[in-house]
């Protein structure tokens, strides 16, 4: 069946995000080990389906064909709660189970860091053996990537809701700089519960085998923000927009790592200044220079600053 074959291919790619656009980019998220696809689908058809299982099965099959850039967030996700450990075998697919385990593992990150141990603890809470953590890479990459993509999804949902309110006339349309500031702040605030261990995560995301995936997640998040910004006022072209906001986001994130002010005030002030600088670049010459600077800032400076951030946080 076509759907099964396509679904199989996607699973082989490893990382499924629930949004159609991201499905195309998914091809880069290749895990170290190849996933075998067909046994799972076979298994599911053997088992007795709960009403919940069959509805998410449909969701699963319909996604591969959905490639529109503008897409509503998916409907309410099937709830996995309320089932005992024995029910873990009624899951719909390996990937969905893996996502469940990673989500459960996030709770243990503040204590264990982004490690296989956190994943093992997560698996335990789902009633699975700690050995299930062996499904993932031992450096915790998948856990971090899962978290990042979860945050990005949450951000998109947030922006979508805001846009709806504006369309319904219930809220004012924000100016571009205000919009960008709020979006970046909202996204960065999601890091707060994990901020102690975040420098560790950043350094893992910079490992060569993770860069394609982490870069992809970053750029799609940035594109998302610009899309919802609906910017008409500035004279930026698409590449500049991307590079500028990426630079702003990355540098603000790094500042946040080293920020000890109450509720990260210093970070938001830094963010405000960077966005204001960006808005002031209106002519082409400035844009070209700034694009270059922003790219350099965003990528190269990151590696050095992260290690500093890690040391300063360790000291504190």
């Amino acid at each position, binding site marked *: 069946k076509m759907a099964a074959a396509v679904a199989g291919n996607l699973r082989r790619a490893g990382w499924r995000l629930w949004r159609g656009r991201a499905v195309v980019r998914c091809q880069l998220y290749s895990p170290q080990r190849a996933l*075998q696809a067909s*046994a799972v689908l076979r298994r599911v058809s053997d088992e007795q389906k709960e009403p919940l299982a069959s509805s998410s099965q449909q969701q699963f099959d319909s996604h591969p064909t959905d490639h529109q850039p503008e897409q509503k967030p998916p409907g309410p996700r099937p709830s996995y709660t309320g089932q005992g450990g024995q029910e873990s075998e009624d899951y719909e697919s390996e990937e969905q189970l893996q996502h469940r385990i990673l989500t459960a593992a996030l709770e243990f990150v503040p204590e264990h860091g982004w490690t296989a141990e956190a994943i093992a603890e997560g698996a335990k809470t789902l009633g699975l053996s700690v050995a299930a953590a062996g*499904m993932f890479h031992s450096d915790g990459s998948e856990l971090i990537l899962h978290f990042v993509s979860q945050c990005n999804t949450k951000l998109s949902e947030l922006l979508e809701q805001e846009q709806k309110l504006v369309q319904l006339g219930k809220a004012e349309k924000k100016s571009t700089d205000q919009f960008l500031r709020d979006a970046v702040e909202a996204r960065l605030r999601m890091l707060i519960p994990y901020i102690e261990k975040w420098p560790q995560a950043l350094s893992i995301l910079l490992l060569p085998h993770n860069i394609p995936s982490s870069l992809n997640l970053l750029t799609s998040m940035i594109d998302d923000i610009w899309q919802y910004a609906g910017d008409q006022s500035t004279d930026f072209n698409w590449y500049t927009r991307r590079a500028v906001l990426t630079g702003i986001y990355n540098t603000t994130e790094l500042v946040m790592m080293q920020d000890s002010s109450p509720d990260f005030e210093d970070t938001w002030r830094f963010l405000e200044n960077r966005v204001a600088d960006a808005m002031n670049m209106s002519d082409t010459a400035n844009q070209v220079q700034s694009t270059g600077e922003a790219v350099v800032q965003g990528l190269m400076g990151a590696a050095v600053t992260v290690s500093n951030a890690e040391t300063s946080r360790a000291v504190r």
Partner: protein
Amino acid sequence: GGALRALCGAGRGLAAGPETHFGFQTVTEAERREKIYQVFESVAKKYDVMNDSMTLGIHRVWKDILMHKMNPSPGTILLDVAGGTGDIAFRFINYVRSARERQLQRKLKNHQNLSWQEISESYQEDKFKLLGDSQVVVCDINKEMLKVGKQKAQHLGYSEGLSWVLGNAEELPFDDDKFDVYTIAFGIRNVTRIDLALEEAYRVLKPGGRFLCLEFSHVSNPLLSRLYDLYSFQVIPVLGEVIAGDWKSYQYLVESIRRFPPQEELKAMIEDAGFLKVDYQNLNSGIVAIHSGFKL
């Protein structure tokens, strides 16, 4: 169910049952089990020495890689089948011990603001759980191999968290859903009904548990394959005669490796038993392969 199967097996053996192989010979299933038992009975005392000389010590690296791949966290319960002389079990204990130490160190680091009294108290209570509740059960069908293993354990000082059980991989004496990890290192080749062993493995593993199999496999590289064949058939039986005084057992060993299913076929068999996310990793271009699967 198991008892019935055993009866049928014995019955079939008496009636010149289903044919299978013993090395390159054709024998009945019952004969095969008997012959293999005798092979290991005779090689048990020299098993470790022979492993070292045949593989030039590389088998130790293979077993270390297996342990690293398993990456067991403290609290893991391991069943090592055909574990005979205890190589995997001892490595497991070492690994878990050092993981546990690191865990305790990290806990202490996080408790920087406790008083000395509190720190020493917390250290004391954890001290008695050096392995952090981890356990390994070594199961083997052969009494002689187990005997050698127990002696080794005593000699090397392994006692905590270790137990030895006499049992058949095709019919394990354990309840369902008991173990976190099931390993079988260089043992599955000697099992007569591999499918039964895989089903048993599935049965005794907890949901989420992992199956790991370390075994000789097929070399695809033609040049390496020829050298390997040359070494296997010309050198190993000679070593067997010289070191262990037993040519035939080592002839069997080499032949059984050739008869064993290649990587993809074993992978399919593991999937048939119900395991998911089945995959394999070739070591030394396929001389040895580690197969892994999960009970999900």
